[in-house]
């Protein structure tokens, strides 16, 4: 890493800026769990070493280029060329210095290697306590999130929002049936690819309650950029309450607008891709909408979940996420308002 005063200033400015204006919850160096914490620790160990290496090399380069040459280092003429005289004694001395440099390099690298392996070993150790199992399925361009249960109708399916309890390890089972995706929530842990044909797993723990942003890290097609997720770490009680609420089937709407919206939903192409438990909609191509009203965002983290955003999203998803697999839905304004009202009350 470069480390002259100017660069230090720049780096610090960037860091400070990160603390004030950046979304705190998506930052590999602002660790909120042991996994990301260990990795950030590794960085803070390697950064000074790398900086010292760089400073030494550049200092020698500058000094070697600029130093005053003694008059004894005169040029001699060989076959018409002005070439420095051979100086075997000096070259032998330099050989010793270079050899010393190589040994120092080897020792430094070995030290870094041991630190790497220690962190790597700590991260690969499966959690000793009972972990919360979560299944993640990657889709173009959203995340399916499942909370399996031994009793099938107690399992939960949601999308793009992973709730986890604080202080308890989480084990994610990662699968994909289309292309390769990669799950990455920098504040909590490093990434892991979702490989079609393989099942991968990832375990981590959040220590501080909060909302952590993540997004797909493996190029997966047109809307790779807008395949985002939120990980919401909450206390065990809040988490249990959320999970049991998610187990409920969808509420039957009470007001007439939402009731009409339900009819619209069940009578249009929505049901070709989406499911709402407790209704006739049971397709699995798109996100499960049973509790869509309770989610903070729509379009895989692209828009805040508001009436207006939902309205424009359903009317023309291609304008917001060009290339998303959801087609535009042509509805009259009244039907659309009813549909939005219905979906929004699915808490």
């Amino acid at each position, binding site marked *: 890493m470069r480390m002259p005063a100017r660069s230090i200033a720049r780096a610090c400015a960037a860091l400070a800026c990160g603390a004030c204006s950046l979304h705190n919850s998506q930052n590999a160096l602002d660790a909120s769990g042991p996994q990301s914490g260990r990795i950030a620790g590794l960085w803070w160990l390697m950064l000074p070493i790398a900086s010292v290496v760089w400073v030494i090399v550049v200092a020698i*380069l500058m000094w070697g280029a600029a130093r005053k040459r003694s008059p004894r280092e005169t040029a001699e003429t060989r076959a018409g060329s002005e070439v420095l005289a051979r100086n075997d004694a000096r070259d032998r001395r330099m050989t010793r210095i270079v050899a010393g440099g190589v040994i120092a390099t080897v020792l430094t690298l070995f030290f870094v290697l041991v630190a790497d392996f220690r962190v790597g070993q700590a991260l690969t150790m499966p959690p000793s306590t009972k972990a919360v199992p979560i299944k993640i399925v990657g889709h173009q361009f959203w995340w399916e999130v499942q909370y399996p249960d031994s009793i099938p109708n107690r399992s939960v399916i949601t999308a793009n929002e992973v709730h986890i309890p604080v202080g308890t390890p989480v084990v994610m089972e990662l699968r994909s049936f289309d292309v390769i995706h990669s799950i990455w929530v920098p504040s909590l842990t490093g990434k892991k690819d979702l490989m079609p044909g393989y099942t991968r797993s990832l375990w981590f723990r959040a220590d501080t309650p909060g909302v952590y942003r993540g997004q797909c890290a493996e190029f997966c097609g047109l809307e790779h950029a807008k395949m985002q997720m939120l990980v919401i770490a909450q206390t065990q009680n809040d988490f249990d309450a959320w999970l049991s609420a998610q187990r409920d089937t969808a509420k039957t709407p009470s007001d007439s607008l939402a009731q009409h919206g339900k009819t619209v939903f069940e009578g249009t192409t929505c049901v070709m891709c989406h499911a709402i438990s407790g209704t006739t909609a049971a397709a699995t191509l798109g996100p499960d909408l049973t509790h869509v009203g309770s989610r903070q965002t729509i379009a895989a983290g692209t828009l805040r979940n508001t009436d207006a955003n939902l309205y424009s999203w359903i009317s023309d998803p291609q304008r917001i996420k060009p290339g998303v697999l959801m087609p535009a839905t042509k509805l009259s304004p009244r039907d659309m308002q009813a549909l939005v009202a219905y979906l929004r009350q699915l808490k």
Partner: protein
Amino acid sequence: MTAPPVAVGDSVPVDDRAEREQMTRVWERKPGLWGWLTTTNHKEIGKRYITTAFIFFLLGGIEAAMMRAQLSRPENSFLGPDKYNQIFTMHGSTMMFLFAVPIMESLGLYFVPLMVGTRNVAFPRLNAFGYWLFLIGGSFLYVQFFLNTGPDVGWFAYVPLSGPAFSPGKRADTWAQTITFTEIVAIVGAIELIVTIFKQRAVGMSLNRIPIFVWAMLVTAFMIMFAMPAVATASMYLALDRLVGTHFFNPSEGGDVLLWQHMFWFFGHPEVYIIFLPATGLVSTMLPAFTRRPVFGYPAMVLALVSVAFMAFGLWVHHMFATGIPQLAASFFTATSTMIAIPSGVQIFCWLATIWSGRPRFATPLLFIMGFIVLFVIGGVTGVMIASVPFDLQVHDTFFIVAHFHYVLMGGAVFPLFGAFYYWFPKVTGRMLSERLGKWNFWLFFIGMNLTFFPMHWLGFYGMPRRVYTYLASTGWGPLNLLASIGALVIASSVIIFLVNVLVSVRDGAIAGDNPWDADTLEWATSSPPPPYNFLHLPVVQGRSALWDEGDEHQVAVGTSTERREVLLTTTLDAQPDSRESHPHDSIWPFAMALAIGVLFITAIFTALALPIGGALALVAFAGWAWPSSEDVKTESDEKISLEGA
């Protein structure tokens, strides 16, 4: 040894002129378009090759600038995802396959014969064929791009995204077929380089005396021979999956998506060193001229090159740490990825020692060399960091990696390359580039490079993945991205200054003379630009610095024919005269063969009929190529070769 057939008399100027005219008659190409198409002279082809590759560099640069424009602010609408994905794929594919590897090989094909003191490259028709195929393959990619059929699956084209199910249409086929073109081009270039270096060196240039750039090209050529077949096979599997319906990479039919990554990176990581090693060779070969001493630690430098080449094949999995490779296996690749820093360190220490003990002359090439060391070490230390599995799992596929490999490839390869342009431009054109513009070129490049890529390290930590066409304002990535985009403008202005410098200097630059830098390698022993036959008398080498170690007597090897094209073959280890080899004449058949192969590859993505039709055309071209001519190739013994003082 018997007397040479060509006598060297006392009145050198008179004899010299007649002799030169005779040699020019034998070696120069026919005039006009026909001559242009049929030439097999390594310098003509090399110049075209370098120019073509540089044009691809400019195109790749324009694509980079467009990406930076799009990312300069959040939710920008300059490029949509469809265009952006094509453009970042084109940028990567262009820079890796159409610029970096070809320009290093073409520098080798131009300068290696001059540096080893021979008249042409081995297999000159293959050389012409390679260039034409490169031109056809590269143009094919860009024609497709301008027809909106440019690849959009990344330069790595991971399956299953690039497979038939998720990339319908011809975009991914364009990518796969371009790769097939460039692999063949790279491999034929490597064959020519290896044979030229092993068999056509000047008398006395034993293996421990060849210039380090030539060593670097030799090592690189071997790496190409082993690395390229892996990706050529992979791209053929992909083409079969897409065009024929095989299931190499289809998991639901027992195919494997990881297989692609292994095959791609088995090529893809050595590829980095295929680009970087020639660049280190350029540095080591330029440095003596600007420090007035031979490069320090020649044996260590050469051993470093060779060991890097071996290790480069043992670390491809570090591109795949996030795929779920078992920890123990990954540790092996962490160790090798860390280990490869050792030979790179050896090279850097030797350059530092050379500069320290030398008498630096701060011409533009030396500035680029020093800039190279400053930038490359940044890329090197971040390279050691990302060798670590846990750390890589955070920064993999983020802008941290983008920053890292641009420091390595731009700092580590493009900077030496620009230094090399300033250094060898006088040899190729006979005129010097402007030093004043050169300094502007360097400083803007250096500043722009750091403005663009240094902030990207932090963007990586803040969670910005690669290959995203946009980002939300709430991410807070805007300011650093804007900074990077401003840096891109600075780099662009620097490259424009370079272009101006070239265009002005090629007509009005100072006349260079044979050896403007007072350098030590053989290419400076002939005129600038060199005559078609390179050297009137083949040089004899008496030391590692060919021109500096010459005794009082200038020795040459005489005895090769002046009546027809002939090169002198020497023994591989000691470069003692071995035999005289007739050298092929100019021919249209390499061009015809390239056209036939071009037709075959390009139409193959549209119809299976391409195979019989293109195959038949290629057969015709091959027959023409191989047809025995009246000037039959024959090899003669060395009895007529003699060494003389001239």
